[in-house]
């Protein structure tokens, strides 16, 4: 099977879907002539021309709304945000128009649109540019939230997102665009709401998605080698819908759960998973659920501070040990 970068997997997904369906187009800042700020849309302008790969002015509210309006008449826009930090200037379009026009019209209009781009702390971009928007958008009924952690998942999930008839928030991560992995040549898609066990284990369930999935896997390896602790890493892959059945099944097996995210902890995804676990399998938990998240502060620029705020391998490993009462 060919091994490609996650960036290329996304590019393939968009190109294949655009070839398949003339209603699909890509719009965003620098996606066309610049080939994408992070080169995800490399070569697409040449392939599809300026009506289907469209450079937009710095008007997130305008072009997000443009996408939603076009979706109302059956087009299938892919709207790229250079980062989802910039989706906050278009927030009303994201949380009111995209997820609610269908509802307010009594189901007369579907909104088949994908908003995609980077989410996460990134490389020392300071407080306003470092948003992890997982919780902000997962909070909102009417949206679907997708976040891949491998090139294989990235391609399969993005194709599903483009074909889905509902608004999808598709979260990528700068640090992962270069990650390589096997991606089959033949066509495939990945359904929403199906978690994937990225590492089998028996001692503790770690729920992690997107970039933190890598952190969790590294922590699992470390614990395996250093202490023979056998961690299960579960990647929900979509946060709305969220595959609680799989999470619960895993926790029933291990008795422990740690969640890992890079966003603010308060009212985060970890809080939600913890709530549902204590509600649905209170008696299967041998300890409380541990939420590992960014420290509850704006993201600082200075590198040592940033690395202290964002959960790393060591912190995750420590929290797992504490959670399973590991002595040593």
């Amino acid at each position: 099977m060919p091994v490609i970068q996650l960036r290329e997997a996304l590019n393939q997904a968009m190109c294949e879907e655009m070839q398949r369906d003339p209603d699909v187009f890509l719009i965003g800042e620098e996606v066309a002539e610049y080939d994408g700020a992070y080169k995800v849309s490399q070569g697409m302008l040449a392939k599809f021309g300026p009506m289907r790969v469209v450079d937009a002015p710095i008007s997130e509210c305008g072009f997000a709304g443009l996408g939603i309006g076009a979706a109302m008449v059956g087009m299938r826009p892919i709207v790229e945000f250079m980062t989802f930090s910039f989706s906050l200037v278009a927030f009303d379009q994201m949380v009111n128009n995209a997820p609610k026009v269908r509802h307010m019209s009594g189901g007369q209009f579907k909104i088949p649109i994908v908003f995609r781009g980077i989410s996460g702390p990134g490389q020392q971009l300071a407080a306003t540019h470092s948003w992890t928007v997982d919780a902000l958008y997962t909070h909102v009924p009417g949206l679907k939230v997708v976040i891949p952690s491998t090139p294989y998942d990235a391609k399969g999930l993005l194709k599903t997102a483009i074909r889905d008839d509902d608004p999808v928030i598709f979260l990528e991560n700068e640090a992962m665009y270069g990650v390589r992995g096997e991606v089959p040549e033949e066509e495939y898609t990945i359904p929403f709401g199906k978690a994937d066990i990225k590492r089998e284990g028996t001692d503790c369930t770690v729920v992690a998605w997107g970039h933190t999935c890598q952190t969790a896997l590294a922590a699992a390896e470390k614990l395996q080698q250093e202490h023979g602790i056998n961690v299960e890493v579960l990647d929900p892959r979509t946060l709305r819908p969220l595959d609680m059945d799989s999470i619960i099944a895993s926790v029933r097996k291990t008795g422990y759960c740690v969640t890992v995210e890079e966003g603010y902890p308060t009212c985060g995804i970890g809080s939600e998973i913890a709530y549902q676990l204590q509600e649905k399998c209170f008696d299967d938990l041998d300890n409380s659920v541990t939420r590992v998240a960014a420290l509850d502060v704006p993201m600082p620029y200075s590198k040592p501070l940033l690395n202290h705020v964002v959960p790393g391998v060591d912190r995750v490993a420590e929290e797992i040990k504490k959670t399973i009462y590991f002595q040593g």
Partner: protein
Amino acid sequence: MLYGCPGLKPLYMGENVKTLVEAAQKIEPSTAQMMDWYRQMVLIRQFELRSAQSYQQQKIGGFCHLYVGQEAVAVGSLAAVRPSDYVITAYRDHGHAIARGMDMHPLFAELYGKKTGCSHGKGGSMHFFDASKNFFGGHAIVAAHIPLAVGLGWAVKYRKEDRVVLCYFGDGAMNQGSFHEALNLAGLFKLPIIFLVEDNGYGMGTHVHRASAVTDLKLRTGDAYGIPGKDVDGMDCLAMYRMTLSAAEYCRKGNGSIFLQVKTYRYRGHSMSDPQKYRTREEVAQFQEHDPIGRLEKVLRDAGVLDDQKIQAVNDEVHKLVEEAHLRADADPYPELDDVWTDIYSNPFDPYKL
């Protein structure tokens, strides 16, 4: 081509607009057409008066923004576009929905929160929609629908279709950032959109001159977005028809977007709960002297196609229709409680799967 050309003499300074206005004057609708407009305006007004009653009777909840006084704007402009064209507006949408040809029953039913409502009772007064009539709502966040109009225009250009988009909004909406981003995109991509501001002088209780740095709104889009602005008397149904028809022509010819500043006035409060301390009875009375229904009435009388008797007949017929629609809607059932889970996702998952 996709982008406006730098260096080129901006379009809005060219000939197109002059010819546009001249063309407008020449358009002569038949008296039959005008009779139809007259009836539509009467119908909208009676619909609104019935709505006002129903609101007082608490059959209607939330905000209810009446269109009384502005009828000529929706009727005249919508008479000038085609069923295949796209229409979108804000929350003061009763008049547009009716002029676009929606039946009154699903509208009353929507106001009453009934399952038979045009939006299944999910949207209410501010969210009338009808996909079959290319009527895209009904939007309650001020100016947030203007970028959607740009998306509709984009789809038309993308698919090389012969359609125009007619987008209504209020004078107050022009101070929202989304208005700016939308008009720049429309001007940049040369999209076939008629941006029509219903300048009724007030955003809620705030007069235009206390909200907008420039009060002659038609000036605000030319130099800023390369979108020519024209003004129209919104109390004159004929003028509305003429200008909108030639504006639509202008757009269909691929000239890009155009902006119409329509001077109009709302007789009622901003919404049903508005004490209206911000204006005098005299001011309202002044505008009522130019009542759009009265004005068209005169034209038709002079043309000899309307007299007291006919007027009475129209009013009686309309009144009957309004009452029937209202009574039917009032008797309709509310949605089932489980309906709260529907109309949210097209590809639903639990708990949205019923």
